[in-house]
């Protein structure tokens, strides 16, 4: 049966592709070097030379937004990748082990969820120092807890299905059953969740960089650009708009992609948009 692809999937994929393309392009070309300082040309409004204007050190905002896309994607990918690498095996393990193993994973999850992700990151950066790596670690911790919980729930549902029981009866071990039967059946749910977490990671990285705890200069970051812009709200209000638009479009693209994927994989489920 051929399903129609949901509209949100199209839009989400298009926005996400745009983001990725901008990030990739910034590797090859930006209008100006993103780190080039020219104090005389500071806080200029958008013009033909600088499409989005210049910041308080005369750096080209468009170039910074482009490189910022790369940094946001990198942090998001690392935070979600690490989260997947740790969370999915934990969730599968919990589902396969049952009782006490399940309990341990569940309690660890409770512990992580007791601290809001941003709070964890603030504490962790205080202990280990501000910077992108430590922010990634904090966000990955949160992501792995979410993914472990989602994986476990989905895996338990698969374990209860008759074909898994049949496979076990035919002599498959729990490990091989997990790999052959469980994993392929939960992959969709996990991918959807990972997409949404990617969006959350981008927002959280921006918030932490806004507080000065995330990506460090000279490397541009959307969140820090907003933090800097707040100082210049009177003199250069537009500076507070562009990086925010970039964040919003990226998050919009990823959440729509996630929603669209979910609708496509499971048409009965209407998107509720809960992150």
């Amino acid at each position, binding site marked *: 049966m051929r399903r129609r692809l949901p509209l949100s999937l199209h839009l989400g994929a298009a926005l996400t592709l745009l983001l990725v393309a901008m990030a990739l392009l910034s590797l090859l070309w930006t209008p100006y070097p993103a780190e080039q300082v020219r104090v005389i040309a500071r806080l200029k409004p958008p013009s033909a030379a600088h499409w989005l204007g210049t910041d308080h050190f005369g750096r080209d905002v468009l170039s910074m937004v482009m490189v910022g896309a790369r940094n946001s994607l990198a942090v998001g990918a690392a935070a979600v990748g690490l989260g997947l690498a740790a969370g999915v095996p934990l969730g599968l393990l919990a589902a396969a082990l049952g009782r006490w193993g399940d309990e341990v994973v569940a309690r660890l999850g*409770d512990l992580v969820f007791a601290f809001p992700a941003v709070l964890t990151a603030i504490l962790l950066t205080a*202990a280990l120092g501000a910077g992108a790596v430590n922010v990634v670690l904090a966000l990955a911790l949160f992501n792995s807890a979410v993914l472990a919980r989602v994986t476990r729930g989905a895996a338990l549902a698969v374990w209860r299905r008759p074909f898994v029981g049949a496979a076990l009866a035919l002599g498959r071990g729990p490990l091989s059953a997990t790999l052959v039967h469980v994993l392929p059946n939960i992959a969709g749910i996990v991918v959807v969740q990972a997409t949404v977490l990617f969006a959350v990671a981008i927002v959280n990285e921006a918030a932490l960089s806004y507080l000065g705890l995330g990506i460090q200069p000279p490397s541009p970051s959307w969140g820090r650009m907003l933090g800097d812009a707040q100082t210049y709200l009177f003199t250069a209000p537009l500076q507070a708009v562009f990086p925010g638009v970039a*964040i919003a479009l990226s998050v919009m693209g990823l959440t729509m992609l996630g929603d669209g994927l979910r609708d496509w994989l499971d048409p009965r489920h209407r998107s509720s948009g809960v992150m």
Partner: protein
Amino acid sequence: MLAFLLRRLVSLIVTVWLASIVVFAVLQLVPGDPALLMLGVNAQPDTLAALRGQMGLDQPVLTRYLQWAGALARGDLGVSLTYARPVAELVAERLAVTLPLALLSLVISTALALPLGLLAAAQRGRGGDWAVLGFSQLGVSMPSFWIAILLILLFSLTLHWFPAGGFPGWTGPGWGGGIGPALHALLLPALALALPEAAILARVTRTAVLDTLAEDHIRTARAKGVSRTAVLLRHALPNALIPVATVLGLQISFLVAGAVVVENVFTLPGLGRLLYQAIGQRDLIVVQGVVVLLALFVVVVNALVDIACALADPRPKGVSS
């Protein structure tokens, strides 16, 4: 059911206890000596030692943890290293800002979300529905601190309707404070927190209302000639409130995190700002106390949501989700 509640309570206590250990341990890794920070670059070693003694920092780590955790178990949060005041007092003072802020944003977000969700459901597939879904998609995508900056730009710096930050206090007059000015100062931050929340809730409301509309008794009511509006308001909405409340509960921890950042944007003297400043000042006693309180709050809310779900639907009982 009783066994379920008991298990939930035990796991709640264990989680908070583990959280207290984690927080304490992480703070031991934080570089920086509170005494050195207080006394600055010209402090002499003997003065630093004297102050550390006063602060109780000369004790071994385990002793300090046991003292703190013991006092905590009795409800005593200790005395702030920086402000030399009981932490409970500081927290109470800051809650007078954060709690009204959170409540105000909850009120605003539900006041926005319920009508929008209903409208979308009523207009399903038509213009209103698309508008609400669009707003919701936008709201979910904009980080609250950016909304906060945009609100400052528009309402404070351009229109001069609201202050750009700060909090005059609830008491007045004569000091510029009072209920009116205080609410005035809280409105923009509350709005910044409420908009993303409203976006999510509007979607949940829409979905929930559509779900109930599909149920049999609603169809029966419609068949009996009850008007569409009446069905929406009297039948669909009350039933939709349960999932909305559940999501609201789950969103509480996001609200807490959002408040930390938004309070910093508006320099509001709330709990989030106290925490953020206390980390900078190495006021470990305050950080420990506030973080454990926040963790307790989040865990309790999660447990309540769990219990409410279990009561409403007996199926997942025993299986913690």
